[in-house]
């Protein structure tokens, strides 16, 4: 049986149980008002418990509440003169109290927070049941009285203790438990008082009504408490999620930053290492060749020329490679010069309309550079354009880069494609990338990058 069906079955069973109990009370000649209240108290526990149980199936608090509701009606059947129903009802008359105590002690987590709490709950269950057995056999009220008072005293100590030990956040959730304990203590006191039978029927009737009303307040308090906690949890969840998203973005920005730094280092290592050595070797070879050419037959020198040409070509290729790894102009001169270099190298005639004159954060400059580089590569490959234009301007704390062409359009970001990688990179530094490429009307790529990557400007700014 699924949890849902189980709950429906319990709800139906609880209703039948409640109606049965009130039928017994009616036959015993108890007034309609008392019967109604008695019925409602049990149903309040049952419905409140089942409702919150369905919301939090893993939390046992709400099963305790449901059980307390069912237990509420059990004692009533002691008025039936049918054996063994009567005896069973007498023995189990305090099931409601037993589950209520457990409910108060496990709220809100569904688990006992200390061994003492657990021992008290189990002790109360055994003690209350045992005292009812004694009551059934001997009809002596002294022992139930002692047990009841002991349990009441224990609760009166434990719940305030939990309150004192709780953090301010936890205390917000413990309010209903505290109120419930107060009401429970009152209810138990009244129950003991009436069972001792030393009051007039009128007083007893009033006391019982007060007890029932107090008990009616408990499930409501817990349900309200549940909603408070759920709202708290939701707020914390949202806050945590925001913090996680921001941390994720920061970590992506750090990855981008580290990647840029690694490329810069690699370019520098190539430049200061392999390139430098190859240039020195090339110079040495050429000087040697010139010296040889003075003394010997030119035909003997000829093979050296092939080597020199090969070396010169490798050097030129290495230079291109290093430039591709990291554009030195970007670091040394700035975004404007680097964009001009990209435009110079683009096979499609490209103008730079505007470029920031001042230096920007290195990660911002590099991101802008790669946006334009990738966009111009795409223009050359797919757009069939006759011209492209790049515009980079600073506006409200953001660098706005627009690359547009007059080509065929239809560009789209595909997973794993250049544009998607670019969008990831721009997002990582807190920016946005928009691709507008209607078929036949050219492509507009717009990237907006906050100038301070650690403080992305407000979306509505400007």
């Amino acid at each position, binding site marked *: 049986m699924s949890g849902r069906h189980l709950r429906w079955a319990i709800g139906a069973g609880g209703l039948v149980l409640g109606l049965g109990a009130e039928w017994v009370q009616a036959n015993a000649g108890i007034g309609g008002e008392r019967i109604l209240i008695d019925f409602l108290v049990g149903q309040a526990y049952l419905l409140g418990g089942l409702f919150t149980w369905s919301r939090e199936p893993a939390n046992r608090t709400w099963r305790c509440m449901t059980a307390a509701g069912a237990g509420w009606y059990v004692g009533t059947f002691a008025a039936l003169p049918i054996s063994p129903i009567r005896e069973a009802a007498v023995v189990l008359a305090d099931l409601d109290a037993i589950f209520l105590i457990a409910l108060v002690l496990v709220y809100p987590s569904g688990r006992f927070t200390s061994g003492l709490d657990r021992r008290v709950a189990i002790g109360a269950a055994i003690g209350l049941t045992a005292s009812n057995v004694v009551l059934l056999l001997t009809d002596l009220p002294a022992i139930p009285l002692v047990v009841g008072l002991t349990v009441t005293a224990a609760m009166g100590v434990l719940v305030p203790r939990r309150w004192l030990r709780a953090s301010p956040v936890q205390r917000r959730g413990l309010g209903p438990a505290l109120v419930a304990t107060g009401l429970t203590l009152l209810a138990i006191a009244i129950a003991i008082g009436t069972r001792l039978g030393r009051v007039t029927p009128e007083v007893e009737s009033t006391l019982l009504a007060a007890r029932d009303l107090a008990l009616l307040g408990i499930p409501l308090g817990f349900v309200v408490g549940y909603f408070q906690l759920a709202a708290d949890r939701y707020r914390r969840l949202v806050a945590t999620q925001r913090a996680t998203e921001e941390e994720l973005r920061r970590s992506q920005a750090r990855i981008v930053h580290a990647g840029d730094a690694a490329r810069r280092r690699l370019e520098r290592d190539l430049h200061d290492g392999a390139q*430098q*050595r190859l240039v*020195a070797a090339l*110079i040495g070879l050429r000087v040697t060749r*010139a*010296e040889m050419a003075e003394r010997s037959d030119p035909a003997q020198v000829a093979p050296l020329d092939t080597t020199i040409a090969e070396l010169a070509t490798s050097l030129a290729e290495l230079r291109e490679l290093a430039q591709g790894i990291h554009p030195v*102009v970007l670091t040394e001169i700035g975004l404007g010069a680097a964009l001009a270099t990209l435009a*110079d190298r683009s096979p499609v005639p490209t103008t730079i309309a505007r470029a920031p004159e001042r230096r920007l954060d290195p990660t911002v400059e590099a991101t802008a550079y790669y946006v334009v580089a990738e966009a111009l590569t795409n223009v050359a490959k797919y757009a069939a354009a006759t011209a492209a234009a790049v515009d980079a301007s600073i506006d409200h704390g953001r660098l706005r880069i627009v690359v547009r062409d007059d080509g065929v359009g239809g560009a789209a970001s595909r997973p794993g494609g250049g544009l998607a990688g670019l969008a990831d990179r721009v997002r990582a530094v807190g920016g946005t990338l928009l691709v507008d490429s209607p078929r036949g009307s050219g492509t507009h790529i717009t990237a907006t990058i906050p100038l301070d990557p650690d403080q992305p400007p407000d979306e509505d700014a400007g």
Partner: protein
Amino acid sequence: MWTMHPNARHDAMTEAGRPLRVVVADDSVLIRQGVTRVLSAGGFDVVGDVGTAEELLTLVAGHRPDVAIIDIRMPPEQSDEGLRAARTIRAMAGPRVGVLMLSQYVEPAFAMTLLADGAEGLGYLLKDRVGDLDDFLDAVRRIAHGGSVIDPEVVTRLVNRVQLAGPIDELTERERDVLSLIAEGRSNAAIAGRLFVTEKTVEAHTANIFAKLGLLPTPDDHRRVLAVLAYLRTAGPPA
């Protein structure tokens, strides 16, 4: 040992008849040795070679060389120390100390930065060029005598931009060749030698080029370098 042609050797002298004095700054010992070897064989007097910008400035202040050959990237930051040192030297000594910037970057932007305040006695060459012995020595000499030198590959990058449009389209093939050689800092005589034409012909081409591009004719080689480079740098695609 390989030696320069005697006539060429003569050019490695000042008017006073002493060899041209050169300092070399590069953090790679191998490169310094290579450059020094080429220069010495070419009849230059290498008065010192150093590995940092700071040492270079001391060396220049002490020796007042005719030309300082400087690596664009040097310790401590391996950034643009060479460029900054060049600017300091020029601020200190003016065009009397020529500066030849050696670089691994085919980047017009770096050359333009070097030439920001004039082109007299300034040069920007790729390091590989040191191995083109005669060309390299010629470049050092031209700089010593106040000329300008821009690496042919850098010029090619500027001239080959597809962006170039408008008046430059009206240049003939031959005029484009002349334009490139002007941008490299060559004199009319040198251009004539390269293209196997007379100097008069080169002058005629030059006049045509300047007229077509709308540039003002200028007698100084190093001024016309700037004019041409500035034109190439800013010329845009068709409107």
